[in-house]
């Protein structure tokens, strides 16, 4: 049995890790996993470098920035990815009294985003680009997820990018509507979060990584077959109420990382000025 | 615990003897005691003080002079008995009663200059800002600090601080002036000058004064009566009448045979107490 510590944010997008842990899949593959859901992406990377964790789940955009600044990270596995099935989970909520019907209407508006530079944020900007709307003309304001509904209702912003269940609540409380399900227009299989480790550790622990991937593969199968059970597990680890979870689609789980997805984000961030120097995206996936 | 109620009257020129006994006392101290826990500090003191009278208080160190004065100022509550001011029981401090504290260093506001410290009393009684500078300068002049109005207490000598405190009390324009060894830190000449200054002020304003001192000559020179306290617990040993004419004079009064007789009497008294 190999002991490893994993850090993740407490969100449904890392469901595979929860399931693998809860269903004993890690044990079955010879891994003894200590599991810590943790707040912010940055501290997770720091914990990884400090060695108190071996694998952490971060937003792929954060990973790319870390790599750019010289932290040698590699992707171990993915989990939640974009997919047409879950496209309705995410959208742009507009409050009552604000007229946003076409993408051009967004110009000059104040829009809330859960995390500037996060995956959702980058993807939304990609969508704007597809619609030929410059994101320079829009003011983005970061709004923590729990405040989504209150802030939209309060009127300091015009619209907000949100996922369920906040999305529904925001629409209901502000008597607004969902203007765009923009995810439908974006490519599938882009990971919301990705499990990474340091290259050094990956080299020394190829077997452990293999075992981890196997567990995730099994977990993805399990999720595909047992949505209700998965909801229970996710609820247990994230402490999101089961009633809330049962109203939404669980994220699509595709554990195998792809260079294509990384390239897509790399390009998007480069265009947005969030990345500057060259990154060897092909080498970013642990062998 | 001998409590002697003095029936004798002060021989002040302004108040003839005959009138005195009929007059309401300004301060009536009736069988006052004070204890800290089990320790009795003051044991049964009774004195009446007439308006305009000056009482000197003497007694050995630690006998309770300061404590008595604090009760007269309303700063300490008697354990039993009462202090009355103009017939009403004194419930607490009163602006018409001024007290010069023995520890002058602590009683001044260190962040105010000499002028500012005097000003405090004027502000307290609501004196208009425009009139203050003149009054302050006048008072400081009187106590010999005219040139030091802008000094902070930390920049003044002990005697200067002591005088400053006196000036503040005078600014209060009190009916009753309680002084706790106010000239203790002063040289003989300054002291004599201030004695006359205070006597003059008391005479013109008609204030009643209780004056604690350990200087026998000072006690005689200033007082109409002298209260001699005995220690453990503090109580009145004797009340001595001072039958010296007023206004008094530093040279003539001190050479008066009565003055010398009184000095001898008091000296013997406290020497006996001390043994």
């Amino acid at each position, binding site marked *: 049995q190999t002991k490893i510590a994993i850090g993740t944010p407490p969100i449904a997008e890392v469901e595979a890790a929860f399931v693998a842990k809860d269903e004993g899949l890690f044990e079955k593959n010879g891994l003894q996993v200590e599991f810590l859901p943790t707040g912010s*992406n*940055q501290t997770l*990377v*720091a914990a990884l*470098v400090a060695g108190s964790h071996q694998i952490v789940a971060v937003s792929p955009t*954060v990973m790319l*920035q*870390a790599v*750019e*600044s*010289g*932290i040698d990270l590699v992707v171990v596995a993915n989990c939640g990815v974009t997919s047409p099935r879950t496209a309705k989970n995410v959208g742009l909520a507009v409050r009552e009294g604000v007229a946003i019907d076409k993408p051009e209407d967004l110009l000059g508006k104040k829009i809330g985003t859960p995390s*500037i*530079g996060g995956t959702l944020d980058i993807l939304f900007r990609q969508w704007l680009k597809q619609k030929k709307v410059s994101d320079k003309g829009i003011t983005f*304001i*970061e*709004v*923590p997820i*729990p*405040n989504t509904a*209150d*802030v939209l209702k*309060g*009127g*300091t*912003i015009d619209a907000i990018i949100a996922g369920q269940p906040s999305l529904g609540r925001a629409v209901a409380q502000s008597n607004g509507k969902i203007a765009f399900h923009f995810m439908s227009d974006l490519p599938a299989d882009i990971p919301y979060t990705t499990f990474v480790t340091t290259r050094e550790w990956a080299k020394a622990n190829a077997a452990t990584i293999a075992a981890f991937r196997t567990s995730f593969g099994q977990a993805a199968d399990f999720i595909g077959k047992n949505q209700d059970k998965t909801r229970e597990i996710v609820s247990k680890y994230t402490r999101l109420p089961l009633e809330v979870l049962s109203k939404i689609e669980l994220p699509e789980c595709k554990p195998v990382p792809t260079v294509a997805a990384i390239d897509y984000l790399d390009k998007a961030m480069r265009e947005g000025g*969030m990345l500057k120097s060259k990154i060897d995206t092909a080498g970013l996936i642990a062998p | 615990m001998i409590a002697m109620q003095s029936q004798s009257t002060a021989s002040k020129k302004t108040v003839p003897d005959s009138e005195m006994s009929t007059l309401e006392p300004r301060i009536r101290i009736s069988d006052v005691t004070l204890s800290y826990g089990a320790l009795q500090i003051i044991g049964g003191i009774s004195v009446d003080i007439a308006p305009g009278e000056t009482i000197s208080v003497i007694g050995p160190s630690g006998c309770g002079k300061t404590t008595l004065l604090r009760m007269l*100022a*309303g*700063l300490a509550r008697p354990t039993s008995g009462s202090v009355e001011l103009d017939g009403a029981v004194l419930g*607490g*401090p*009163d*602006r018409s*009663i*001024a*007290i010069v*504290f023995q*520890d002058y260093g*602590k*009683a001044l*506001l*260190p*962040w*105010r200059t000499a002028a500012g410290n005097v000003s*405090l*009393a004027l*502000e*307290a*009684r609501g004196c208009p800002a425009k009139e203050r500078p003149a009054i302050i300068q006048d008072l400081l002049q009187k106590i010999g600090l005219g040139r030091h109005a802008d000094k*902070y*207490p*930390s*920049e003044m000598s002990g005697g200067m601080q002591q005088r400053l405190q006196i000036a503040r009390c005078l600014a*209060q324009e009190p009916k009753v002036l309680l002084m706790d060894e106010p000239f203790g830190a002063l040289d003989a000449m300054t002291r004599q000058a201030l004695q006359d200054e205070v006597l003059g002020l008391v005479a013109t304003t008609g204030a009643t004064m209780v004056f604690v001192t350990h200087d026998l000559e000072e006690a005689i020179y200033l007082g109409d009566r002298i209260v001699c306290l005995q220690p453990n617990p503090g109580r009145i040993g004797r009340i001595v009448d001072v039958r010296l004419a007023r206004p008094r004079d530093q040279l003539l009064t001190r050479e008066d045979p009565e003055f010398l007789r009184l000095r001898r009497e008091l000296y013997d008294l406290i020497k006996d107490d001390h043994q």
Partner: protein
Amino acid sequence: MTGFSFRKFGLGLSGLAAFLLIWKLVTDAKIVSPIFLPGPERTFTALMNGLAGGPLLGQTVETVERMLLGWLLASLVGILLGALIGVSRRARTYIAPTLELLRPLPASAMIPIAIAFLGFSDQMVLVVIAFGALWPMLLATIHGFAAMEPRLYEVSAVLGLNRLQVIWKLALPSAMPMVLASLRLGLTISLILAVVGEMLASREGLGQSILLASRSFRSADLFAGIVILGAIGLIGSRLLSMAERRLLRWQASSR
């Protein structure tokens, strides 16, 4: 009374130089990964870039404004409440316990609540700053009142000063050294909370710049922001010292 001494200035500079040297030695020894802890040179370069063409200057102005407003609010409320509690027994029984209950509430955890009530506004950040920076002034004022030379309370009683006069003329000046020290603390806390507030409520300013730098692992930029924070704090504290020297003249002469 010029308030400037070459000796003091020289000593201060040499202290700072020693600190920079230690910083450089630590980073050169690579005890902490340079990705998270940049050396002084890299920080300086980032600082210059940010100030010359970058947004640092504007952000600094924003943050300073926020800090000052919050600090003023906190000082006012802290000193007034402290004075109230210091002199009024009723305030002590009715209000003080509630304040004790509020004191340990982390200002950062209050931000989401403040957002719920006030939205993403500058007022919200101000309220959070005031809430967090209030306590040193409050405690120092209460303590200053309590520790005032008892003889002075007697003086005030004898002079028949009313309560307002006791506060204004005796207790506050006597508490002044403590209050001034706490004003300094309060200023620092205000600055820190302005930054945290900007981070959590995404207002324009140094906080956001630091947050974004830290998110994208641009540690040199992050430290450049921190250096500016230090400079703001230093300037604020120097100004306060000057005020202190004036206000505490009476004290300086006694040593």
